[in-house]
């Protein structure tokens, strides 16, 4: 075999090894494994056959070269043993690398030694400057021409052999590490051929290392992304949870009013499952609002592009019925684009009930105040009755004549007590009134009948004015209560009359309301007393209870009516307005 042939064969083998190395290196993206494969390839007996190989990589901030890994026998004996083993077993590099690629990497003694090395990149020493300039150095410290720069003492101590080759590793012109190979144990010189192959290998190795690093970084980024994604999901779930668990019915539709989503409360209100609701028109799931057309409402909100809300709307939905606050809100993608409409149904039936109860409590508190007033009011008559009774007792005991006046006063005061009692009972009655449609005009005639003899006693009269409307005036309410209210007013007018003019009652219809005027000539009400006269126990009469107007006002208010008074130019007019019942 010629010298040429030998050379050719060795080159082929080396190329094959190079191919093997790059193949295995690209089969893994684990940096330590990549490094190990490269170094193993370099030192494998059948290939490049360097005795030892060390690998250094720049740290992240580019300030130090750090020893990362080393391959080779620790000493001469070790070297002999290993070579013998490989010789006997005839393991090919391929098999060896296969095993290496699978095995978990454990640090060897040599690894540990090299990992202690950390040399500054920005120094004047040999390795550092070669690394910076991306320059291959074939060093022979034993030759007469000593190298241009001094070797880092740390490296000199590590290698402890004068001849070695420093191979820089750079990726796209950016230095990233360096490899040092030597032949300490068989002392073979490093040839130009070796150097050429080392340069090629270095290229391969650099790419592989860079890949592994990039992969490592990518993995980190992916992990971070996964984390972020998890957080976003959690937040999303959280938001959805809030919407889902909120005790307000919420449903979202697209611009064609087809339901996209709704929360649990909405489903339970509708008495339907989510699947039954999704994809259906909002106007066709049984939601009705009293006095409104849901379909038209939705359309209007969309067209006018303005949210709408209704408070205390009477609604029915599935089997639910009650009061709700209804909100129709535009669902916007951005400022210009509409995505659909959000329907929010907040059932306030229970709340309204509570408010009702609260109002009752307030009434009760009023009742308490009333009771206190009554207690005070009845003390005067009681004192008088008791006092005169005692006087009579004394007179009877002494056998002296009985004062007739005492008896008269006692019966008078008892009558006053009765009045206070019945008015109080009326005022504080919590009786549920039964409302019915009745003719107000007929009731007024009856009331006039009731009080006309009383008017005569007081030297006056009471009559229905000819300007009153004819025919029935229908109102909804309790005829008994309204008659009571009217009689109280009639009596007051009769009591205030003087000058012989009869009390005039006028009944009219005005728009949706019945209006009653009660007018008398006589004693006026002072401007400052206009409010006071409606308070319980306000009276300017010695025999008065002060409850008449309080009772009247309460009844009128309960009938959603109004009561007003005007007192001037010798005349006092009370005006009552009541909503008309249908049909009149």
């Amino acid at each position, binding site marked *: 075999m010629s010298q040429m042939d030998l050379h050719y064969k060795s080159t082929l083998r080396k190329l094959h090894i190079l191919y093997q190395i790059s193949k295995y290196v690209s089969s893994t993206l684990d940096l330590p494994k990549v490094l190990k494969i490269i170094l193993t390839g370099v030192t494998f007996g059948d290939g490049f056959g360097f005795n030892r190989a060390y690998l250094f990589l720049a740290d992240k901030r580019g300030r130090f070269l750090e020893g990362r890994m080393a391959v080779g026998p620790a000493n001469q004996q070790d070297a002999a043993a290993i070579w013998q083993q490989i010789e006997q077993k005839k393991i090919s590099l391929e098999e060896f690398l296969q095993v290496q690629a699978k095995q978990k990497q454990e640090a060897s003694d040599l690894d540990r030694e090299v990992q202690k090395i950390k040399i500054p990149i920005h120094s004047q020493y040999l390795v550092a400057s070669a690394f910076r300039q991306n320059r291959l150095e074939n060093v022979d410290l034993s030759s007469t021409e000593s190298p241009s720069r001094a070797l880092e003492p740390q490296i000199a101590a590590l290698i402890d052999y004068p001849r070695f080759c420093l191979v820089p590793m750079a990726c796209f012109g950016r230095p990233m590490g360096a490899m040092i190979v030597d032949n300490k144990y068989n002392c073979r010189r490093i040839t130009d051929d070796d150097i050429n192959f080392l340069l090629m290998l270095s290229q391969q190795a650099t790419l592989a290392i860079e890949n592994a690093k990039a992969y490592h970084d990518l993995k980190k980024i992916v992990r971070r992304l996964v984390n972020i994604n998890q957080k976003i999901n959690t937040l999303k779930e959280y938001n959805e949870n809030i919407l889902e668990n909120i005790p307000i019915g919420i449903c979202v539709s697209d611009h064609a009013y087809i339901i996209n989503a709704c929360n649990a409360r909405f489903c339970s209100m509708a008495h339907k499952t989510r699947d039954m609701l999704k994809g259906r028109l909002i106007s066709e799931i049984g939601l009705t609002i009293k006095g409104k057309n849901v379909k038209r409402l939705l359309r209007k909100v969309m067209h006018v592009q303005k949210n709408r809300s209704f408070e205390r709307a009477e609604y029915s939905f599935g089997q639910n019925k009650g009061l709700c606050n209804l909100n129709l809100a535009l669902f916007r993608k951005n400022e210009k684009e509409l995505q659909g409409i959000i329907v929010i149904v907040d059932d306030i039936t229970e709340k309204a009930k509570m408010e009702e109860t609260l109002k009752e409590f307030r009434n009760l508190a009023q009742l308490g105040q009333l009771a206190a007033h009554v207690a005070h009011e009845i003390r005067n008559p009681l*004192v*008088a009755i008791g006092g005169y009774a*005692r*006087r009579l007792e004394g007179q009877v005991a002494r056998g002296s004549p009985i004062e007739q006046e005492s008896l008269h*006063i006692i019966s008078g005061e008892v009558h006053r007590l009765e009045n206070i009692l019945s008015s109080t009972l009326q005022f504080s009655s919590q009786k549920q009134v039964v409302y019915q449609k009745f003719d107000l005009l007929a009731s007024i005639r009856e009331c006039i009948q009731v009080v006309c003899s009383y008017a005569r006693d007081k030297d006056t009269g009471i009559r229905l004015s000819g300007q009153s409307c004819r025919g029935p005036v229908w109102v909804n309410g309790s005829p008994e209560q309204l008659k009571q209210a009217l009689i109280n007013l009639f009596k007051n007018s009769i009591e205030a009359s003087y000058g012989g003019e009869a009390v005039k009652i006028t009944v009219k219809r005005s728009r949706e309301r019945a209006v009653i005027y009660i007018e008398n000539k006589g004693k006026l009400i002072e401007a400052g007393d206009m409010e006071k006269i409606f308070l319980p126990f306000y009276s300017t009469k010695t025999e008065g209870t002060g409850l008449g107007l309080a009772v009247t006002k309460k009844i009128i208010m309960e009938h959603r009516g109004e009561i007003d008074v005007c007192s001037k130019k010798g005349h006092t007019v009370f005006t009552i307005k009541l909503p008309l019942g249908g049909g009149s």
Partner: protein
Amino acid sequence: MKKILVVEDDEHIRKLYAAELADEGYMVVVAGDGDLGYERYLKEKPDLITVDIKMERVDGIRMMRMIRKRDKKIPIIIYTAYGEYSQDFSTWAANAYLVKSANLEQLKKKIKQLLR
């Protein structure tokens, strides 16, 4: 004979007090409200005044204030149907505070005590 001014707006009670106190041997003058009460006080120069503090027009308290400006010594008895005022008036210029009752014994006792 000692003279007592009774200021009370309830006619029947006014009459009752007048009759009862007259039976006790006092000379009684009456007034139906605070204004009249003050007038009567100036004219009649009574030895003692009883006054209801809750009356329609000038209430008893204002009348008492006006009287006290001229005379710091004259005994004044406040009585009323409103028991809860006693706290507010204990420091007032009145010499006694009574709640209205059909039993006048307490009032009579107080009057006797204050006129001694």
